[in-house]
């Protein structure tokens, strides 16, 4: 069974290398110089370093994680409180700016740089936790749906259809209207609304795997359904799940930012990137661009970083998911 998985990944890597056009290059290098300079690294790292975009993505992500974890170390200022006398200060490089407020201050005198750092915390937390919830629901339902088929499959897939028929943002807004504001609520909402893609992809793959001989064999020796699903089928689907999840973190961060922008996410004093852009919106014409530009760029960079890493992960692990 482990062999199956290994084979699938190898196949995937091969396709990816051909598709990227980088594979040949490095193999060429290998013959020319006798041995690869990075031969000591595991295959996955070598593949990552070969892909320039993905390397940039990883660097960006590392920076975002450092910002999130080290916000209170990097900046000593309070993200929720500012001096009203310091309101609307421009960034340090503009006239009137000071090094105390690198990226300027908002209308309440709060330091934009500090708030952007703390915003990374919210975005990453929401992105990762919501994706874990959505993934857990989706994988479970997908496994059940694909494995058992029949009535239960029909029910689960119709629920998926129903959820897909409502634009995601409307659905999330409706749920948030019930739950109210709060970080936990936005995580729950994005977790509930995000499961469908996993459900469908996992179901499709389970349909294929359950007819294979090793699953038949497991059934013959009396393995129970739960064990077959979790120990024999699920490991073969991991690659797809990881790829889906990586893209989902990006889209979840975008969704959280959108909901915060609409004022539906977290209370306004909590520093979120989307909320900061919304607050800066009133100052577009009056020219205080720093209030919305820096949090906006932060969202963009984080999402960009995750997307390029996701692209590479997909090419490496499961090129079949290209059309997602």
């Amino acid at each position: 069974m482990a062999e199956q998985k290994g084979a699938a990944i190898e196949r995937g890597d091969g396709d990816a290398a051909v598709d990227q056009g980088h594979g040949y290059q490095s193999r060429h290098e290998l013959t020319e110089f006798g041995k690869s300079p990075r031969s000591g690294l595991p295959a996955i790292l070598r593949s990552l370093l070969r892909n320039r975009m993905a390397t940039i993505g990883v660097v960006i992500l590392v920076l975002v994680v450092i910002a999130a974890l080290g916000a209170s170390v990097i900046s000593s200022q309070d993200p929720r409180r500012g001096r009203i006398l310091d309101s609307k200060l421009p960034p340090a490089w503009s006239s009137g700016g000071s090094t105390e407020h690198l990226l300027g201050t908002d209308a309440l005198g709060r330091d934009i740089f500090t708030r952007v750092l703390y915003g990374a915390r919210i975005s990453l937390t929401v992105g990762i936790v919501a994706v874990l919830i959505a993934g857990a629901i989706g994988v479970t339902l997908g496994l059940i749906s694909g494995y058992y088929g029949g009535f239960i499959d029909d029910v689960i897939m119709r629920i998926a259809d129903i959820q897909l028929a409502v634009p995601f943002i409307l659905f999330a807004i409706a749920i948030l209207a019930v739950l109210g504001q709060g970080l936990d609520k936005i995580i729950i909402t994005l977790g509930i609304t995000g499961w469908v893609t996993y459900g469908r992809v996992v179901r499709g793959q389970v349909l294929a795997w359950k007819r294979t001989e090793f699953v038949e064999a497991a059934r013959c020796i009396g393995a129970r359904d739960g064990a077959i699903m979790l120990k024999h089928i699920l490991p073969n689907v991991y690659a797809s799940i990881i790829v889906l999840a990586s893209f989902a973190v990006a889209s979840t961060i975008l969704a959280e930012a959108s909901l915060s922008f609409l004022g539906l996410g977290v209370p306004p004093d909590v520093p979120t990137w989307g909320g900061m852009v919304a607050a800066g919106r009133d100052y577009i014409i009056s020219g205080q661009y720093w209030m919305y530009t820096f949090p906006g760029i932060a969202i963009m960079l984080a999402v960009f970083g995750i997307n390029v890493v996701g692209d590479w992960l997909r090419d490496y692990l499961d090129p079949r998911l290209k059309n997602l």
Partner: protein
Amino acid sequence: MGRYVIRRLLQSILVVVGVTFLVFIILYQTGDPVQLLVGPDATKDDIAQIRHEMGFDRPWYVQYADFMSGAVHGDFGTSLRQDQPVWDLVVERLPATLELAIAAFVLSLVISLPVGIISATRRNSIWDNLSMGGALFGQSLPVFFLGIILIYIFAGQLKILPSFGRGSGGIQSQFSHLVLPAITLGTFSLARNARLIRSSLLEVLGLEFVKTARAKGLTENTVVWRHALKNALIPVVTIFGLEFGNLLGGAVITETVFAWPGVGRMVILAIQQRDFPLVVGTVTVVAIIFVILNLLVDLLYGLLDPRVRYS
């Protein structure tokens, strides 16, 4: 084919009913809106009476059955705040949203097709790298941030385009009001489609029948446009169908940024005001549009790909 259409139609109806049920239950949980409608001076008896008059004291399944029996006849209830039939309000706002979504869709299509095709045919050229880098960038840009940046540049600095509303009177005013919202809404799907078209076309260009076509001595243009593209478009069409639905959803944010008088803005306002029938009605109408589109896309498959058998 006939049986397939009927089966898909029944499935679609089931989905729409499911949507109304889901939204109804969710909003029912928010509590009844009577408390918000009456002022703080209302007595308990007043509230009880209004609640009774409006039917909010009935069990949820009676309220739902009532809503559905009306909906079948085109009656989606009455807005609590505006005292007008929900259907009229939606119909009044829908053209603005459709205008925006269609403009964004056309923009996305008109640009993504040539960009994707050229990128695929000149793979790894400077053009390919630039446009695919740009597409990745476009996919990472939050809709609302893009809208604000465009407003800053074109309305704030250059002062050549209006930043809010739909314009009035002449076609020129309406067009100039549409430009920024359409770009804002269309960019994400433009970026995604360009990438999708490229990868789909690249895949098809590697297949045997393309080699055959080339071996026959056909020009590269004929190979790409007549033979490869038709096959490459199959996965793209699926996404396009879903894409239009996403555009309708994305319109919620775009309409908020540009104060565009469409359905999306109305629904956000209705949720804030707990205008319960208006929300359910609007979401139902949007879902119906979306489901019809998906049905059309499924049927379109058969025209593009004769291998698809409707069984």
